């Protein structure tokens, strides 16, 4: 039994170490924001300050980059969410072989390195349409792979969609547009929200693809990278800290929303009295 206990201690210790490894770098970066030192560091500690937030606030180029990022993200959401929805609806109605092929093409941008997505977009639009890098191409390039994420989210929700609802409405004389607006879309609404959320985040933090198609425009992520390489001050840490805090809030809100949704689904399934459902395995003795 002591061997068992020793192993458990080892496993738990490993897990603690793993989480320390995940969070300590972020904590160090955050801490450096409050150090007076001109170069972001935690050693030596030269005194507590909030000046770097003020410096960040006065940085006009940062605000410009933020504006560009928000414009790009809005464009990506406007394109990727409808495309993802359409793709999921189409896949749902395709049969075996066609479905596999179309699906493979749809997810291929996710398995392609981001730099290549950027490069192919850059070449194609210049050669065919004479469009050079800028906000427009950034939106286009990001949409090409973010739409795939949206498609996967819609697909997951469609899997549990009760098709008979649509059929019943059609039988009762509803038009196709009415069925879509009153039944399909409301059911998919949570997926629309999460797809928009994911699209925003993916667009906002994208670097590899954006780098090739941005032209002379600078998004916030590109701006941070350029600051790290030239002109690094703890103001960059202040910006990072703000972004991380916003991300953490967003992630927690998203996760809680997802779980509430899942719980509701489980309750609904139980109410439906699904007697054929497999018995939940007994909780492991720990």
């Amino acid at each position, binding site marked *: 039994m002591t061997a068992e206990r020793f192993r458990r201690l080892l496993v738990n210790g490993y897990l603690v170490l793993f989480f320390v490894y995940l969070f300590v770098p972020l904590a160090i970066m955050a801490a450096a924001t409050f150090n007076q030192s001109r170069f972001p560091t935690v050693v030596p500690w030269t005194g507590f300050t909030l000046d770097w937030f003020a410096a960040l606030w006065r940085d006009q180029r940062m605000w410009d980059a933020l504006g560009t990022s928000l414009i790009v993200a809005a464009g990506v959401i406007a394109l990727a969410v409808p495309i993802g929805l359409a793709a999921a609806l189409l896949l749902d109605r395709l049969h075996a072989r066609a479905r596999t092929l179309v699906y493979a093409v749809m997810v291929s941008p996710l398995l392609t390195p981001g730099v290549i997505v950027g490069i*192919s977009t850059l070449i194609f639009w210049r050669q065919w349409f004479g469009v050079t890098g800028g906000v427009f191409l950034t939106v286009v390039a990001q949409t090409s792979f973010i739409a795939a994420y949206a498609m996967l989210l819609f697909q997951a929700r469609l899997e549990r969609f009760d098709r008979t609802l649509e059929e019943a409405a059609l039988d009762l004389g509803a038009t196709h547009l009415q069925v*879509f607006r009153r039944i399909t879309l409301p059911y998919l609404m949570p997926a629309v929200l999460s797809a928009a959320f994911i699209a925003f985040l993916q667009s906002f933090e994208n670097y590899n693809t954006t780098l090739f198609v941005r032209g002379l425009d600078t998004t916030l992520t590109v701006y941070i990278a350029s600051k790290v390489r030239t002109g690094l001050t703890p103001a960059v840490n202040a910006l990072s800290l703000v972004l991380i805090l916003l991300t953490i809030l967003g992630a927690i809100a998203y996760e809680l929303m997802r779980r509430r949704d899942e719980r509701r689904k489980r309750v609904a399934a139980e109410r439906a009295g699904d007697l054929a459902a497999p018995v939940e395995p007994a909780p492991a003795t720990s």
Partner: protein
Amino acid sequence: MTGLVRRYGPVLTGVILLLVATWLVLLVVLPQLLMVDFSLRPMLPPSKAGGPEDVYTLGNYATLWTNRIHLSIFLKTVWASALVTLVTLAVCYPVAYYLAQVAPKRRLPTLVLMLVVPFWINELLRTFAWYIILAYNGPLNLALVWLGVWTEPQRLLGGDVGVIVGMVYVYILFMVFPMYNAMESLDRNQIEAARDLGAGWARIHRRIVVPHAKPGIAVGCIMTFMLAAGSYAVPALLGGPQSRWFTEVIYNWFFEGGNWNQGAAYAFILLVLCVGFILLMMRLFRVGLADIAK
């Protein structure tokens, strides 16, 4: 297709098809094809485009072979990405196993949330954190000197070591989640039964857990390798002129060398490398595309 019309009517079907076609044709397939076409042509001034000199050639691909510096950077990118993948696999396996099979159900939501949160944080910011840690006068050097590992600080930034360490940190969560998802569906009773029948710790993993988790391991390795080989942010921030990454060479062809045809050829080589790795993983773990693209 007829199912689509019956369900959504001709108008909506038209909109759906238009959206999907625009996406797949204009944003995905054609750009890729044109990139390959572009890579097979020599760089010419616009006046000569379409002229007698505008012929298909493998010259841009031959450059990688004749330019020994580029070749060594390419090979370095391959082995370093493989190393990153291997290290993340080794680090993540126990974590994924613990979460999926050992962790008390009560604590699981919190643990998963603690994994999800850093996963959401911008890749560039997570890289930047290591820029501060690895700095010459940074906390890691200070700690190692204090512990007596080194007598004086070492340069950790600007070399391959810094890049690899950073990549392991940045891409580790792309390994944890696919493995966790795959292991989660394994019935805990199976492990219990194997243990009751006298199977040892190593045997349980070799014969039950790993075979069950294969698709997850394959996906994790594919994502990690692809992200590492295609990374620009990490080598740009943590590396230096002595530790260039293949993506940086590609970038230079576009924005400093000004030879897009050459850059397209290198980009296609990178893509072939990643596709090759996907096929290798599929063969190695005997999983199909359907298992991977879940």
